[in-house]
């Protein structure tokens, strides 16, 4: 696969098949951690780190440890590996840099229950990606996640001041906003052939 192919994977995962708005993964942090821009940025950064790493590691596990024989252990071994990475990163960051921990650390525990983190490695297997592709797919997917999250947080901060009907305030309007965002992202449809 050439540079162009890699680029297409990136564009595809970030924009066209955005993990949040097109693939509908990682919804909980998308709605939960998007009330403030600052936290959204932190969550995005933390997720990007873990997801890229987890994507690569999962590939190695799947390829060298499980094979087709033990494929049924995929889910459980992926999640164990990811939990390990998250936990280690959390404790390490906390110990190594309190500043960084304040920025990223508090989001790390939330990452294990972000289904994008497991979804992307599983999609990697489904799409028969090689190691580099898996890494890129993980990175692109999480950048796409961060992008959607940060944009969404910006919108929600602005919506705080809006004079909207009471019953729509909060989660409801967040859903509808996400819906229109997802509609807008459909504009990228067809740019990268699936």
């Amino acid at each position, binding site marked *: 696969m050439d540079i162009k192919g890699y680029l297409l994977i990136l564009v595809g995962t970030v924009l066209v098949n955005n993990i949040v*708005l*097109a*693939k*509908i*993964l*990682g*919804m*909980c942090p*998308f*709605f*939960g951690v998007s009330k403030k821009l600052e936290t959204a940025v932190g969550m995005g950064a933390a997720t990007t780190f873990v997801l890229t790493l987890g994507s690569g590691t999962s590939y190695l596990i799947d390829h060298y440890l499980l094979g087709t024989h033990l494929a*049924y*252990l*995929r*889910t*459980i071994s992926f*999640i*164990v590996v990811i*939990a*390990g990475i998250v*936990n280690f990163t959390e404790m390490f960051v906390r110990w190594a840099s309190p500043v960084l921990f304040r920025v990223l650390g508090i989001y790390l*525990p*939330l990452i*294990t*229950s*972000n*289904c994008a*983190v*497991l*979804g992307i490695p*599983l*999609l990697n297997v*489904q799409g028969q990606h090689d190691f580099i592709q898996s890494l890129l797919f993980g990175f692109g997917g999480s950048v796409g996640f961060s992008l959607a999250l940060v944009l969404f947080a910006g919108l929600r901060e602005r919506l705080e001041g809006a*004079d909207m009907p*009471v*019953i*729509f*305030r*909060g*989660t*409801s*309007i*967040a*859903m*509808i906003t*996400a*819906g*229109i965002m*997802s*509609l807008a992202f*459909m504009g990228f449809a067809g740019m990268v052939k699936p």
Partner: protein
Amino acid sequence: MNPYREIILNGVWKQNPSMVQVLGMCPVLAISTNITNALGLGLATALVMAFSNAGVSLVRNHVTPDTRIPVFILIIASMVTIIDMTMNAFVHPLYLVLGIFIPLIVTNCIVLARTEVFASKNTLLPSMLDGFMMGIGVTLVLVILGAIRELAGKGTLLSGIDLALGPVARHWVIHVIPDYPGFLLSILPPGAFFGLGLIIAARNWIDQRHKAAARTPTSTAPVLAESQQA
């Protein structure tokens, strides 16, 4: 109130995972294109939650603080894998449709949240019930959303039921609106968000009416400032 009733009410209404806690949203949003899928995934989730809660409740006194979460996750992942294989074996067509979202029940945050919040502090029976009712809460929203999206999108209900129940069920499909041109948006991702947004708004509305009815009619609470600007 009877604690079991409380647990049931929490799961279905007061602490409904999808409408109130906004957890475990991915399957709800992704799999609600029709009632059949919704029901399938909802019940799978409920089963996983019931058994995970049971498992966690059993071992809750035998974990150390730093291994607690990993152990819970292990239990959940095992349950999910079992359900995964079982569905693959016995409702294969449905399994194919639900696809990646069955293994993703592992990371469905509501599952982990309930093991943490409830099962790790309660005994076996209440824990199982809590898990199951939370799952039913999810199922409820899933089915309502599935019905709305299916109806608006294709004008049918229960399409694809044969996937779950075999060819016998093929003519159970209800064509509510014959010759409906189809409203594609409803079945696409934006439709999922719009639909759930409306359901949550409806829930808010019901809650609000409830509260308004409960309030004494003489109350003269000042109107919120934010509603004062036209």
